Every structure is written in C-alpha cells, then in structure tokens.
C-alpha cells in the first residue's frame, strides 16, 4: 500500500448553527449550515470544493441542494461510522488526483424529522429480525451487552457502563453545545428506567437534530488555509455483518482490525494517544471498542475504565465533547467525533481542553455494531 500518512489534512470543521432540539429545520438545512460553517472555518469557499461526501442521503441530494458539482463523489453509507470512513476515502481520492478539496457533510433531524426513513423490504433483517421486534439499536446492542455480561461478569460490566455514562456527562457539562446540562451521579445512572434490559436509559445515546461538516485537503493546500492543519496519520475501515443476529462475536467489533491497521499506518502505539474519541451510541459500544482498539484485552474493559479514569482529570481523556451520550447524536454520530478531535488538537476547547493534546485516535461504529472506521489525527 502506498504510504498516505500525512498526505492530507483536515482544515475545517463545524456543526450546524443550532443542534439539539431544532423543530424548525430539515435534515438538508443542517447539512447546508454545517457545510457553510466548515468552509468558513477553513477559509475556503464553495467554488473550492471538488469532492463531495455524505452518508444516509446520496450526494445527489446534497450536491443539488448546495449547488456543488463534484469531480469526485462518495455516498458510502455504513451507519454512523461512515463519516470516519469518508476521511480515509478523501485521503485516497486526494492522493489519486480525483479531487483537492473534499467536503464531508452530515445532517439529520433525528428528533424532529417530519418523515420516517424508508426501508427496503429486500433487507434480510426485515424478514428475520424486525418481525420479532429487533427494531432500533437499543434492543440490538442490549443483546450484545447481555452476551458480554455472560462471558465477563454482570456486576463488573454494569459498573463499567456506569463509569462511562458518568464520566461522559462530566465532559458534557464543560461543552456549551452539549444537550445535557445536569450532572449525573452513579445513583442517577443505576436508578434510570429500563429501556431494554440490561440497558438503562443512561446507557443509550441522545436523539437530536444536528448537522456537521469536515473539509479535507491536500498537504500542499493545507499550508495556506485559515486554521492550522490536522494531519491524517492513519485510517482503516471494515464491516463484518448487517443485523445483530449475524454478528460473528457479539463482544467484539471490527475495531479489532481497523484500530491496529490505522495505528500501524500512522506508526503509532497506544501510549502515543493523548485523546480517544470513541463512538458512544451506547455505553457498551465504548467498552468493547476500547478492547477492540487494543487499549486493553478482551474482557478487560471494566478494569480499564474503572475509577473515572476517562473523566476530566483522569489519565485517559475520552469523548471530551460529552459524546453521543450527553452532547449530540442525530442518528449517525461519527462526524462529531472528528470535530471534537480537531478542536482539541487545535487547542480550541477552553475549559475542557486536554493539555498538550497532540495525537487523537478516533473510532466510529455503524449499524448494529456492524462497521467501524478508525483514524489517527495529529497536529503539526
């Protein structure tokens, strides 16, 4: 494989104007606002964009809405990790000469949309899972968590999920854009209502209205943009099933492949990572992703996150935006991981800024624990 490490950089990131509960805006409005804001962050304009990326929707729709006619187009949709994977595709496309300025957009009125997402009846899950009520990710992920508890112990798993929920909320309280504004105690976590046992309410991410966009460009172009470049050191992607019932091992995501591959491409080891941004659709997603990425071994996640180690002041800062659990999660969350990582690497995070944050590892998960994308990012 060609060595593409440090050949492209993220030069613009932004959310849409308002995120959270935004009943007066469509999904495409969130795309538009985020795209305009991210290009402004980069000091670039629409006419600079020649590569267009999105998930969920096709770039047909966003290109038409924004008035962009791309030379390179990618609508890869593998759930919430898609936007992390688009980073890898943008790096490849830029290096191949297919485009020079890649705009990745996301927008979803996850909370306030007036229309449900249509489903194609050919999907095997509609025949074999949906009729039994395998509807919505809380139910699917809950079954995976039950299996983990069976293998590694119910009580220690439960405590780990609580540690993740509570520490993530602490970070959210330092992010003015986070949806959740109230502190969470361990008792609050344990007393929250059941959604799908073994998941409490506070094991589950928010459902918000939000958009986000990221601009990636070539190394050469990145030298002249408004903000300092954030380099893509490594990237990898994969998926291994569709519905939860065909997941090969319910306690292990394909982060076990994409994590080591991205680290290897970046020439990094775990000890180099200053900030972990881990997709937290559920507390459980974080637990098994830390294991998959190799920060600890299978079944060791509960020990790894013990004692609020991932909270502000802990020695393993993680999900400093407040995550999908407490900041925002419109349905597909991955792009927001990138935004926070870039802001931390630029030193823009104020009260929640991680000191000397030079390298971040970002992992997105999509579908029913189905896909993962990992990128390693660094400032100069």
């Amino acid at each position, binding site marked *: 494989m060609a060595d593409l490490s440090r050949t492209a950089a993220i030069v613009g990131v932004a959310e849409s104007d308002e995120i959270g509960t935004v009943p007066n805006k469509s999904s495409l409005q969130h795309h538009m606002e985020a795209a305009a804001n991210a290009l402004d962050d980069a000091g670039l304009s629409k006419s600079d964009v020649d590569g267009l990326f999105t998930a969920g929707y096709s770039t047909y729709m966003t290109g038409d809405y924004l008035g962009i006619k791309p030379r390179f187009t990618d609508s890869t949709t593998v759930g919430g990790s898609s936007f992390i994977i688009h980073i890898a595709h943008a790096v490849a496309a830029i290096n191949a000469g297919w485009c020079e300025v890649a705009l990745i957009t996301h927008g979803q009125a996850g909370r306030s949309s007036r229309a449900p997402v249509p489903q194609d*009846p*050919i999907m*095997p899950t*509609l*025949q*074999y*899972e*949906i*009729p*039994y*009520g*395998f*509807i*919505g990710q*809380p*139910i699917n992920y*809950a*079954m*995976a*968590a*039950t*299996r983990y508890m*069976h293998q590694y112990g119910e009580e220690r798993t439960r405590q780990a999920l609580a540690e993740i929920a509570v520490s993530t909320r602490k970070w959210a309280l330092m992010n003015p854009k986070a949806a959740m504004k109230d502190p969470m105690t361990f008792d609050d976590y344990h007393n929250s*209502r*059941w*959604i*799908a*046992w*073994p*998941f409490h309410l506070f094991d589950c991410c928010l459902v918000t209205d939000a958009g986000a966009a990221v601009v990636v460009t070539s190394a050469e172009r990145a030298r002249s943009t408004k903000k300092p470049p954030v380099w893509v050191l490594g990237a990898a992607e994969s998926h291994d099933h569709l*519905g*939860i*019932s*065909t997941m090969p091992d*319910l306690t292990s995501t394909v982060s076990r492949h994409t994590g080591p591959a991205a680290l290897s491409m970046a020439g990094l080891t775990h000890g180099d990572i200053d900030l972990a941004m881990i997709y937290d659709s559920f507390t459980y997603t974080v637990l098994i992703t830390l294991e998959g990425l190799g920060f600890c071994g299978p079944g060791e996640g509960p020990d790894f996150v013990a004692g609020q180690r991932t909270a502000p002041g802990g020695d393993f800062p993680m999900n400093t935006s407040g995550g999908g659990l407490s900041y925002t999660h419109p349905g597909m969350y991955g792009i927001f991981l990138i935004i926070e990582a870039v802001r931390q690497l630029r030193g823009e995070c104020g009260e929640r800024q991680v000191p000397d944050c030079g390298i971040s590892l970002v992992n997105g998960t999509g579908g029913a624990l189905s896909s993962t994308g990992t990128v390693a990012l660094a400032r100069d």
Partner: protein
Amino acid sequence: MTQQPYSKPLPTPQPESDFYWEKTKEHELWLRSCNDCNQAYFYPRDICPICFSRDTTWVQASGKGTLHTFAIVHRAPTPAFRDDAPFVVAIVDLEEGPRMPTNLVEVEPDPSAIHVGMPVEVVFEDVTEEITLPKFKPAG
C-alpha cells in the same frame, strides 16, 4: 367475534426464502446447508457464506437449541409492540450450528427467569394466514 388485525411488521418472503416461510406455515423449521463444507447456516440464501459454495440444500432442523443471548424490551420500539412490553428478544444457537433471531416466549420477562445457555425449543405462532413465525420457549 372479530379478531384484532395483526399490526406488527411482517416479513415479505423473497425468492430465496419462499420455501422457509412455506415450511414454517407447516410448523417445521428448515435451514440451508452446504454440501461442500457440511455446515448449516442462517438466514437462507443460495450460497454458503462460510465457504462460498453454491452446492447447497435444505435440511430440516430439530428445533432445539440454547439461548445465545437476550434482552428484555421495556420501551416498545413502535406502538404496535406496546401491548407486548415487556417482551424478550433473543438469539438462539440452533443444535445444527447456526444462530437465529427470535422471541423467547412462555417465560417471565425477568432476568432471574432467563439465562444465557438455557436449553430452548421452537414453537410456531401463526400470526396471520400467510405468515407463521418460529419462536422459542424454555425446553421442557
């Protein structure tokens, strides 16, 4: 006496699964199995997802298995499931090898009554005239 119409989602059988759904109507569970690597698999399709052989066949399953995992759904995912909550979604390891999604029925929806690894057996629910769903109950 009129019956409530069935309002939960129903499968739309596809060409490769017509036989599966015809057999569930007869209260039989059939699986696809590979003649090359001799492994059964779920869901039904015309190629073995393990060894990629197209030499595959249908075999009748015993209907016995063990509980691979489960969850107890308290918040119904759609209004149609509201009267069922709490209910148990489950994935079962079939005796023949494959894993299949289902509901665990005829059991208290309580974690003290259900455990991973418990033996289960198939039951058939004729939910409409066209569709019968295979579900599982604790083995007697």
